[in-house]
């Protein structure tokens, strides 16, 4: 047990060592939190009103426990979905695994050690959904101190079983399906699978429910579906037992259900350790990275020269496409949101209403709306905010080659700009399909091309200030870092303010005036961005190691 603890401590320390490394990082994390505070407040407000209004409807028929039941089920499903990719990455694809494989650890010890970081992320998700739900429910039903104590127990224990389910699915999958013959390719497959799963899940939910009724009268809906919801809850024993722990009519029943819950969790842990001990190495060993060229090509034909900026940009693009974590986070996820957007409107009978909105709105509103959607989508792209960090410990190679620092950095900005261009083209296609008129669409294209450059510049500047070069697993660049959030918030606030100003001020009534005003704002932003980028290069380029 000591060795398990030792290993877990080491893995956790390495996983989180980059986070909050210095006081400056802590301060920035605090500001990011402040930026998100309004969103958190809105989320909590919506959740609290849904719960209190549902309780109001369900209480007369003593059906209010169903609220906790359905939320436990949803939390369990979300936890499983969230955990599968991070478990695959942590168990099988993290580069530090080779270091531990040569040490005398049992497979179960490695599995436990490698579970802690993804499990902690699971707790973060649960903190956003489960904790406020239990608090609001307790407040609305006037529960006492026993409810509070039991809620704390349930919050701590609840994520463990869904996480174990995810871990077992992954371990069994890797053992028998043997998808991992090529490590790189299977990483991409796993990532795309989880995204498709999320989109598919959304579509199924939308096909089977009436979303208006869901959001407006969630309580009545639950009341009507009581039997069905309880049936579903019973399919997730932990959700069923957790609900009963918190909602039973007598204190001893509550304690009894808590003991049952602890026993269930202990059994799940036992199963996890046993299967981990037997299966983990069988799926783990023999995974290969990269791929050999399929056929011999004439080397001579592949030798040719390019300008330095082009060769650096090509190197960046190839590295992103060939590194599964980079490919998933920088390219696939930037495509995911437009596809998700289409899936949402296509399966929600919204195309007609959106098309009629576009036809009935004036061109200024259409331009501003499409522009805002695009700013949001480009804001979440992770290519720019990982520009420097992607190089990791190999950053030094940029320092001894005879290339001007600004050429290296601009190749990274261009790379982000090209990748964001994929999202722009996809979105342009969607807007065209939705009937956005030609002139606003062309204007939109010109404006968002500039936004994309600004987004690339801003992300690169921030990454130059706070690079994460000492990662052991590429995932660390994208998870557990606040930099993408910082970039996203700056873009949302800056462009949001500009859009709001142009929209509300009386001078910009026509689409051409709006377009010109926004172009001027963006050209100024590009100029400022380039100026700041050059300053950041001077200050940080040679001082990051």
């Amino acid at each position, binding site marked *: 047990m000591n060795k398990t603890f030792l290993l877990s401590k080491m893995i956790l320390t390495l996983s989180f060592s980059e986070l909050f490394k210095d006081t400056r990082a802590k301060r920035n994390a605090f500001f990011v939190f402040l930026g998100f505070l309004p969103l958190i407040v809105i989320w909590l407000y919506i959740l609290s009103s849904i719960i209190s209004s549902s309780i109001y409807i369900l209480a007369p028929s003593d059906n209010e426990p169903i609220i906790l039941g359905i939320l436990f089920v949803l939390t369990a499903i979300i936890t499983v979905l969230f955990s599968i990719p991070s478990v695959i990455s942590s168990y099988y694809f993290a580069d530090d695994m080779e270091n531990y494989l040569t040490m005398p650890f049992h497979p179960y010890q490695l599995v436990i050690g490698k579970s802690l970081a993804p499990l902690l992320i699971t707790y973060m998700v649960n903190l956003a959904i489960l904790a406020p739900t239990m608090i609001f429910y307790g407040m609305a039903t006037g529960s006492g101190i026993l409810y509070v104590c039991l809620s704390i127990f349930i919050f701590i224990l609840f994520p463990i079983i869904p996480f174990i389910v995810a871990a077992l699915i992954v371990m069994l999958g890797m053992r028998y399906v043997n998808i991992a013959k090529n490590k790189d390719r299977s990483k991409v497959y796993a990532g795309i699978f989880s995204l498709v799963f999320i989109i598919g899940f959304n579509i199924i939910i939308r096909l089977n429910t009436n979303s208006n009724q869901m959001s407006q009268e969630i309580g009545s809906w639950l009341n009507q579906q009581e039997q069905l919801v309880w049936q579903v809850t019973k399919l997730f024993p932990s959700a069923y037992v957790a609900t009963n722990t918190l909602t039973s009519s007598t204190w001893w029943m509550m304690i009894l259900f808590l003991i049952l819950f602890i026993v269930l969790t202990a059994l799940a842990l036992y199963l996890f350790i046993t299967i981990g001990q037997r299966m983990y190495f069988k799926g783990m060993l023999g995974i290969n*990275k990269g791929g*050999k060229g399929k056929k011999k090509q004439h080397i*001579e034909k*592949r030798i040719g020269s390019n300008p330095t900026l082009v060769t650096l940009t090509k190197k960046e693009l190839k590295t992103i496409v060939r590194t599964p974590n980079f490919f998933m986070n920088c390219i696939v996820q930037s495509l995911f949101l437009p596809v998700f957007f289409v899936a949402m409107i296509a399966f929600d009978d919204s195309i007609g209403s959106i098309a009629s909105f576009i036809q009935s709105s004036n061109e200024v509103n259409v331009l501003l709306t499409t522009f805002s959607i695009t700013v949001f989508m480009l804001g979440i792209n992770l290519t720019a905010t990982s520009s420097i960090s992607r190089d990791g410990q190999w950053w030094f*190679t940029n*320092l001894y080659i005879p290339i001007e620092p600004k050429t290296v950095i601009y190749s990274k900005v261009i790379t982000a700009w090209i990748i964001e261009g994929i999202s722009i083209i996809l979105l342009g296609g969607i807007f065209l399909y939705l009937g956005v008129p030609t002139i606003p669409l062309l204007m939109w294209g010109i404006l968002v091309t500039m936004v994309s450059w600004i987004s690339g510049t801003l992300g690169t500047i921030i990454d130059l200030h706070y690079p994460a070069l000492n990662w052991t697993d590429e995932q660390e660049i994208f998870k557990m870092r606040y930099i993408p959030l910082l970039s996203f918030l700056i873009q949302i606030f800056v462009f949001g303010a500009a859009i709001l100003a142009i929209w509300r001020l009386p001078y910009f009534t026509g689409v051409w005036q709006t377009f010109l005003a926004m172009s001027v704002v963006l050209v100024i932003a590009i100029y400022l961005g380039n100026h700041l980028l050059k300053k950041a290069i001077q200050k940080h380029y040679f001082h990051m190691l």
Partner: protein
Amino acid sequence: MIEINHVTKSFSTSKKAVDNLNLTIPAGKIFGFLGPNGAGKSTTIKMMTGILPIDEGSITINGFDITKHPIEAKKIFGYVPDSPDLFLRLKGIEYLNFIGDVYDVPSDVRQEKIAYLTKTFGIYDALNDTIQTYSHGMRQKIIVSGVLLHEPKVWILDEPLTGLDPKSSYSLKEMMREHAQKGYTVFFSTHVLEVVEQLCDEVAIINEGTLLFHGTLEEMRTKFTSDGSLEQMFLELTNHE
């Protein structure tokens, strides 16, 4: 020629990684840089190549100051780092093309040199594979090929023979000799004292950031126990108990 003038580097306030180092590495010679682990060899090489900023002093490569004229200085030398795990997602041929573009090697010269170098090192057939699939030795060979591709006048090699098979090791040593005979500079660090005895015209020994000895092997033998092996002299100098 490389000139290191009063160079100092600290990573903490208490200890200097390199302390007032003065060294001239002449052209036309193979220069060995020795020292125990943590002596300051890699820090010195990183400052010479522009990877680490210099706290005090200056370093010039063929007259170009690495801090004041970094691009000009970097065009002159070729550097083999101590770990060959670089550009792993690129294919071998893509890496060599990248180096060719960075150092402006004309296409026709590239064609000829890439074939020659990679066939000499036995990695020609692997050029279409990503470097990630290469063994340690093959990675070392592709990095060395990249350096030799642009024919730098100054070679700075950090443990260049580690991981090379005997044939490739022999080829590289021959290339180092030929390069020095042409009047160019070869500076390399190593732990393997036999290689130093075989190859070096001059050596410098560093420990705890301070230069302990600089001269030819003959001068070293005169200074220390006359019949002692290089190993004995090295241990004596670095205070091995």
